[in-house]
C-alpha cells in the first residue's frame, strides 16, 4: 500500500500528512487499520474528514470483488487451449496448454525438458501462428534445433522463417535480469492491449531452477522472497495477459536420499497448476536411447498418475520412427 503523500487524493494536504506522521501513520494500510476517533482527538482533525479520507483512499487502492457467474463468462471467452504438438503430452494436459495457467515440466538432466519446450515453441509459432517468448537461463536453446523441428513440419522456407520470427529469445542468467525482463514484458503488453497481433501467447522459462537455486538455503534469507516474486510475476503474466506459461524445473533428492522430487521445495510446488515429470525409460538401455516417460503429478482437471511415452528424437512428427536423429550440421 502506498506511502501517504500530499496530493495522493483530494483532501490530503501536506499538513494532514505531517500530523498523521506524528501519530506514526505513514502508509494507507496504517490509516485503514487505525482507530480514527483516537487519531482525530490527538491530531485535532475533524473525525468526518478522516473517515471521508479513508473511504477515498480505500476506494483508490483496493481490489474489486467479482461474482462467480461473471468470472465464468470471462474465462469462457478469454481462455484458449494451445496444442503442444506432441500427441501424448496433449493427452496428459487435457487437450493442451491452458492460457492463464502455469505448467511445469520437471526432470533430471538429459530427460528432454528443453526438447519439449522447443517443440512447443515450434508448434505454437508455426501451427498456431502465435508469438512465443522463450526465456533461456541455462544456455540450452539452439536455434538450429528449432529449425530442424520446423523443417520436419514444413518444407516451405518462407513459413519456416516466419515461424522463427515469431519466437523471441531472451537470455537471463540471474534472477534480477529475469524479473526485469518479465516486468518489461508486462509493461509492453499492457500498452499494446488493443492490438491483437504481436501479443505473446506462450511464455517459456527454461529453466527456473537455474536462476533460483543459487539463492536458496544457507545464510541467505531473501532467496525465498525472490522466488515468490518470480512466481507472482509469472502468474500475473498468465492471468492478466492471457498467456500460457511453461516452466522447467530440475530434480533433487528426497530427504531420505532415495527418490527424486522436483526442486525448489514445497513453496514452489503450489505455483504451477499442472506438473509433469519426465524420466528416462527404465530398461531401455543406455543413455543413447531417446525414449522418455512423462508422468502427470499434479493437475486441476485430470487424475494424477497418468503416464505416456514419448520419443524426444522425433518430437512432433507424424511418424514415430525408432531411428536416432541425423547428425546436426
Amino acid at each position, binding site marked *: *500500500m*502506498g*506511502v501517504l503523500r500530499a496530493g495522493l487524493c483530494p483532501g490530503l494536504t501536506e499538513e494532514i500528512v505531517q500530523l498523521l506522521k506524528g501519530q506514526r501513520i*505513514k*502508509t494507507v494500510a496504517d490509516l485503514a487499520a487505525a482507530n480514527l476517533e483516537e487519531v482525530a482527538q490527538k491530531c485535532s482533525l475533524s473525525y468526518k474528514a478522516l473517515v471521508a479520507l479513508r473511504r477515498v483512499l480505500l476506494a483508490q487502492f483496493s481490489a474489486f470483488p467479482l461474482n462467480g457467474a461473471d468470472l465464468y463468462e470471462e474465462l469462457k471467452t478469454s481462455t484458449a487451449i494451445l496444442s503442444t504438438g506432441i500427441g501424448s503430452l496433449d493427452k496428459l494436459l487435457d487437450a493442451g496448454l491452458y492460457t492463464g495457467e502455469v505448467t511445469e515440466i520437471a526432470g*533430471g*538432466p*538429459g530427460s528432454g525438458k528443453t526438447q519439449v519446450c522447443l517443440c512447443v*515453441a515450434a508448434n505454437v*509459432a508455426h501451427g498456431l501462428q502465435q508469438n512465443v*517468448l*522463450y526465456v533461456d*537461463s*541455462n*544456455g*540450452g536453446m*539452439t*536455434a*538450429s534445433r*528449432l529449425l530442424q523441428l520446423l523443417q520436419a513440419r514444413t518444407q516451405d522456407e518462407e513459413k519456416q522463417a516466419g515461424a*522463427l*520470427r*515469431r*519466437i*523471441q*529469445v*531472451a*537470455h537471463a*542468467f540471474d534472477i*534480477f535480469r529475469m*524479473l*526485469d*525482463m518479465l*516486468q*518489461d514484458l508486462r*509493461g*509492453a503488453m499492457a500498452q499494446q492491449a488493443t492490438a491483437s497481433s504481436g501479443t505473446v501467447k506462450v511464455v517459456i522459462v527454461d*529453466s527456473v*531452477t*537455474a536462476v533460483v*537455486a*543459487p539463492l*536458496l*538455503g*544457507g545464510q541467505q*534469507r*531473501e532467496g525465498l*522472497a525472490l522466488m515468490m*516474486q518470480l512466481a507472482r510475476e509469472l502468474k500475473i503474466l498468465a492471468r492478466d495477459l492471457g498467456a500460457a506459461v511453461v516452466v522447467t524445473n*530440475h*530434480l*533433487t*533428492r528426497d530427504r531420505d536420499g532415495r527418490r527424486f522430487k522436483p*526442486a525448489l521445495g514445497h513453496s514452489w510446488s503450489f505455483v504451477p497448476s499442472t506438473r509433469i515429470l519426465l524420466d528416462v525409460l527404465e530398461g531401455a538401455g543406455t*543413455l*543413447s536411447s*531417446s525414449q522418455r516417460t512423462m508422468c502427470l503429478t499434479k493437475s486441476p482437471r485430470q487424475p494424477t498418475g497418468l503416464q505416456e511415452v514419448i520419443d524426444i528424437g522425433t518430437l512432433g512428427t507424424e511418424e514415430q520412427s525408432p531411428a536416432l536423429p541425423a*547428425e*546436426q*550440421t
Partner: protein
Amino acid sequence: MQRELVSFPLSPAVRVKLVAAGFQTAEDILEVKPSELSKEVGISKEEALETLQIVRRECLADKPRCAGTSVTVKKCTALELLEQEHTQGFIITFCSALDNILGGGIPLTKTTEVCGVPGVGKTQLCMQLAVDVQIPECFGGVAGEAVFIDTEGSFMVDRVATLATACIQHLRLIAGAHTDGEHQKALEDFTLENILSHIYYFRCHDYTELLAQVYLLPDFLSDHSKVKLMIIDGIAFPFRHDFDDLSLRTRLLNGLAQQMISLANNHRLAVILTNQMTTKIDKSQALLVPALDLQHCTSRPARRSPQFHFRSRLRDFEMLPSLLLRHRQERL
C-alpha cells in the same frame, strides 16, 4: 508499474530500512530526491543515491521510448539467433572423429564438459584446444585467445610448446598447398612466441581462489576482447575435499555454472570444464560416473549446455580421449 523493492538488487540492510520507512514499491521511491530519502530512511547520502540509481535505471527501461542500455535484457528473434549461430565458428580439435561427434568442433557460446578417468588425456585435450583457438580464420579457425584456469597444477608449458610447434608445421603444409599469399601472410603472425603469449594462465589453489577468479573474469574479458576460449581444468578438484557443508557446495557450484554460462553467452566464447570420475555403488554394481554427478544430485546446467545430439553420445565421448592418445602416438 508497481514493482516491489524486493526485486531490485539492493543491499539487505538498505532494503530493510526502506521497508521500515514504508516504501514498498518502486513508484513510492521514484519521485523522492536523494537527500530527502536519506533523511527519511536513515541511510547515508551515497547509499540513497545508489538506491535511486538502481531503481530509476530499471524503471526507465520500462518506457519503450528509451534506447536499450546495457542494463536491459536484449531480446532477439529465433531467426536472428539462427543467423548468429551459422556465422560463428567452431574450435577444431584436430581429431576428426571428435570434431564429427561435436558437429564441427567445440561450439562457441556454450559450455562443454570433458570427463574421464585419471590419465586419459583431459588436460592434453585442453592444452591442444588452447593452441587450436588461435588458428587464423583462413585455415578454418577462430583466431582468438585463451584463458586457462588451472586448479590441479597439471599444465606443462613445454608440452604446449611442442603442441604449438606441431600445429605451426601442420599449417605450413596446408599453406604450401595454396598458391595465394593470404595463407602465408596469416602464418607470419602464428609463431611460437605469439601462441604462448596469448594463453592467459591462472593458477587457483582452492575453491575461494577459483570463485574469486571467476568473479573477476568479466573485467578481464572486457580488456581482452579477443579471448574466445576459457578452460577450467579440474572443476571438481577444489570442491571434493575439505567441504563439510554439502548444500553450500551445491549452491556454489550452481552459482559458478550460471556465471560460466553468462560469460560464454555475453562474451561469445567457449567454456570447457574438466571433471574427474568417481565410483558409484548402485544395486550391488559399481559404476564409473562423473564426479559431483548431476544425475543423482541437484543438476548442473553446465552439463546440459552441450548441443542436442552431443548429449546422446556422452558415454562414447569418454572413449574418445583414449582414441586421441592412440592417434597422437601413431602420428609421432
